[in-house]
């Protein structure tokens, strides 16, 4: 058999090399690590990227805010320009249209600036103006009430922004923390993932749903939401109409949990590290969970009786979600594919399962997250705590944290802007019941493990 061409309409040709520039995962690695290296080069030269990594600071009156923006206008424009150049390169390489992306991203940037600034109002916590939640609600209102032209979707790249943010987050977490807390995160997440999967799968089967739909729903609830559902759908050869059912259910519950988990955590005064661990265990999608975790972490130190730091919420969340759940998606897909061909059978296709999919489906941005963490740990190593706080943090870590917050805000806003409830498929009562059974199991077990069993562990994680 000879393959003679590489460009066929509607077909994306597989190639080990092409993956490096055709997938958002790899681009988040290139960009994230590129930013960190650039920040380090500036730091070594006795300078910093903080000039371009501008961010709103605390304000109490509108005139103060106006002064902030007028003083730093050129810095904000430069930041927008830098993001536009970098992201447009990414968009072009993955095959999207820059012409559609550029105006859409400018729109996202302007709204994100307003959201970022609103979170720095000194009265923000009094009115519960947590930036992730404000971004989400604003996005949902714009997309579902006002409506936007479809072409603007080109700029609402939820996954790309969140992956870039997670790689940058890696630069602010010590590698020793990942080594120390990783095994617990994997243990906790594995217990919940398996129980949730089986709860959804067997409830779905009991209700008469097909094996494959049951597996697609189960993976969505147990592993990493929509991404897991779509990965397992391909692995088990699901019916074309199965993934939208899982997408609808994951999005529905994920949006509810973005608000509900921080709200309940706040009501029972969970330390931020514990709240983040619970969110990491029980939220479904990375971006949705990060919105909830960042929102909850933001409540620390505001006189609400919530102990810990904002970074602890993000760290425990990321460890459980990314290290404990996301990285196993290839294994889940492979095992379910094997079960599909050996137990469930399907006559339409052959009966072979490719081992390569374990790596093929691996969420590559995790590599960037780990490398970023190892890199900054090496850079910071050897500095005393005093030097770190006085020199390294303001020149190196704070600008990276600021860029990370921008990336997260783009993502949270984009969740709202792309969630159009009327467009979601009608899941049907049986899939809804099956998925909800897993959701209930997941949230209860997640609470028990995060708060009761490992609570002392997550409340004391060290993030600096």
């Amino acid at each position: 058999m000879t393959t003679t061409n590489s460009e066929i309409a509607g077909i994306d040709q597989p190639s080990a090399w092409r993956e490096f520039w055709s997938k958002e995962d790899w681009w988040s690695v290139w960009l994230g690590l590129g930013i960190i290296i650039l920040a380090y080069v500036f730091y070594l030269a006795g300078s910093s990227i903080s000039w371009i990594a501008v961010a709103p600071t605390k304000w109490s009156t509108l005139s103060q805010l106006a002064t902030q923006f007028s003083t730093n206008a050129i810095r904000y424009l430069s930041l927008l320009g830098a993001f536009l150049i970098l992201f447009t390169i990414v968009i072009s390489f993955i095959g999207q249209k820059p012409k559609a992306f550029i105006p859409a991203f400018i729109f996202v940037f302007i709204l994100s600036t307003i959201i970022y600034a609103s979170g720095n109002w000194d009265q923000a916590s009094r009115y519960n103006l947590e930036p992730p939640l404000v971004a989400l609600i604003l996005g949902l209102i714009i997309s579902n009430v006002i409506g936007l032209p479809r072409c603007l979707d080109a700029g609402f790249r939820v996954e790309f922004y969140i992956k870039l943010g997670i790689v940058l987050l890696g630069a602010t977490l010590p590698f020793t923390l990942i080594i120390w807390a990783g095994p617990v995160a994997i243990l906790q997440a594995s217990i919940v993932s398996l129980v949730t999967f089986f709860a959804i799968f067997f409830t779905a089967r009991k209700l008469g749903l097909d094996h494959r739909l049951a597996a697609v729903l189960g993976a969505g609830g147990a592993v990493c939401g929509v991404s897991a559902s779509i990965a397992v759908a391909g692995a088990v050869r699901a019916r074309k109409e199965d993934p939208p059912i899982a997408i609808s259910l994951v999005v529905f519950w994920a949006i509810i949990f973005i608000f509900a988990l921080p709200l309940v955590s706040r009501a029972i005064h969970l330390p931020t590290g514990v709240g983040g661990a619970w969110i990491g265990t029980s939220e479904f999608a990375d971006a949705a969970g990060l919105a909830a975790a960042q929102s909850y972490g933001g409540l620390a130190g505001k006189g609400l009786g919530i102990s810990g730091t904002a970074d602890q919420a993000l760290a425990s969340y990321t460890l459980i979600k990314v290290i404990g759940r996301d990285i196993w998606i290839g294994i889940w897909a492979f095992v379910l594919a094997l079960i599909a061909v050996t137990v469930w059978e399907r006559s339409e296709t052959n009966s072979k399962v490719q081992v390569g999919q374990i790596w093929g489906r691996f969420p590559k941005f995790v590599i960037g997250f780990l490398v970023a963490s190892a890199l900054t740990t090496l850079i910071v190593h050897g500095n005393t705590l005093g030097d770190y706080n006085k020199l390294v943090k303001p020149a190196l870590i704070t600008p990276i944290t600021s860029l990370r917050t921008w990336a997260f805000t783009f993502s949270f806003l984009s969740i709202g802007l792309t969630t159009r409830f009327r467009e979601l498929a009608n899941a049907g009562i049986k899939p809804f019941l099956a998925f909800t059974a897993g959701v209930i199991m997941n949230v209860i077990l997640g609470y028990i493990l995060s708060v009761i069993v490992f609570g002392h562990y997550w409340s004391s994680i060290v993030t600096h």
Partner: protein
Amino acid sequence: MKIFNSIQLRSSGPICQECAYFQNDPALIEQVYRGLTAMSSGFASVRDQDGFCLCHQLYLSARDSCPSFVPAAGQVH
């Protein structure tokens, strides 16, 4: 063992990737699966090279194969 017989290191013979019925353009996947971009992406690694089989109406791996294979335009077998 049936399980071990079902595992392959790499595909042999014509695969869905080269079939006229197969479509896996990420933009198309995002267009057809409304809501996918809200919390995932057509361009994510987890999606590998999966796509639609327009013959069997399945969503499957580009490395699958079946007896209904028809070479896509430009493919010589």
